[in-house]
């Protein structure tokens, strides 16, 4: 998994790429924590762009929900965006589509 961030207007966009699974969930989790700290410091919202994610296992999903709790604690609005077909299914199966705001496309 690769991870990049980009500031777009009033949003910090996190871009994981590849698989998020048992081998790299910790790096993914640490990247989310760091991004939320940046978003808090710069008064930005935080969007995770899922368009480059092939699939995400339960540890990656739980890293996301842990990050959501941290974002709420930090006063940072966090959302998911642009899941591909596999990630759409995984979000639905896990019911994480009810836990997160999920945008079909990356917001402008």
């Amino acid at each position: 998994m690769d991870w990049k961030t980009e500031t777009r207007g009033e949003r910090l966009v996190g871009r994981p790429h590849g698989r998020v699974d048992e081998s790299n969930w910790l790096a993914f989790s640490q990247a989310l924590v760091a991004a939320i700290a940046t978003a808090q410091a710069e008064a930005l919202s935080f969007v995770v762009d899922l368009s480059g994610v092939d699939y995400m296992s339960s540890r990656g999903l739980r890293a996301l929900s842990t990050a959501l709790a941290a974002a709420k604690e930090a006063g940072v609005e966090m959302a998911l965006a642009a899941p591909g077909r596999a990630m759409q299914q995984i979000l639905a199966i896990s019911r994480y589509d009810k836990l997160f705001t999920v945008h079909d496309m990356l917001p402008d």
Partner: protein
Amino acid sequence: MLVRFWGTRGSLPVATRAEQVRAKLVGALTAASGRTFADAGEANAFLDGLDDFALTGGYGGASSCVEIEGGDGDFTVCDMGSGLREFGLSALARVSAGHPRRFNIFLSHLHWDHIMGFPFFAPAFDPAATIVVHAGHADAEAALRRQQEEISFPVAFDWLRAKIEFVHMTPGAPREVGGMTVSLIEQFHSHDSYGWRFEAGGKAVVYSTDSEHKSEAMAAEDRFSDFFGRADLVVCDTMYSLRDTVSLKQDWGHSSSLVAIDLCRSAAARRLALFHHEPTYSDAQIQGMHRDAIAYEELTRGDGPAVEVLCAYDGLEVTV
């Protein structure tokens, strides 16, 4: 080894209501759409062809009880939920045919839904029977005695006629019991719970119910992958959606099919049986959860081997 499920429902036994039976009948008759069947065999073949277990069968409603055959002939049973009553009747019939009257019971924990079948366990009234209750909890005997105190039940524990023994086991100290090597692992659940691993003849079965795998403890999940390692069948608590386990039902002590699949994959386990079904779920909802679990396994398989995902129901038998 043979694994026989006598109770698969979580937390509270449930029963199918009249309107639910009627809905199944209406669904099957509608699907038949004017067909005629010469005999029961033709009717059964038609129902099998519908490939809709929620309509043509059902998952049952007895609470946790799973029998494992494969040792030296003793009965081996995981948990004593309400499914134990039906198992006890089956055991008596087998005893009448010459089966030894020795029962090795392994308790995941002492919550009510996992011990409530014992006061109704017919072999406990057989003076020639021996019942050995194995538990990771030192207070297992107290829990069984307490539920048969007068305030809760009319038949006192001391009125039972079988020879009843208690064995306290600890993780990291496997024992040979009934011809199987048996080990246990501590799990996260209120008042603790324990998963059990049974090995015999080169086969392994794991029974891991009422086990929450918490987000803040993900780094420690490898110990479960090790415990499940290369098992032929893993029976796992998959009571809730992943969302529920991290939100409303966090700390309720249960897990999801997604985590179970990932643990089985990491463990290179062959098959997973979804277990401890939510009591409010209809048969259709359990079937939907099963289909979702299969889809998740396929979506996240990557380059690894498949994990076959079964959905346990009362009466299911799995040969491993």
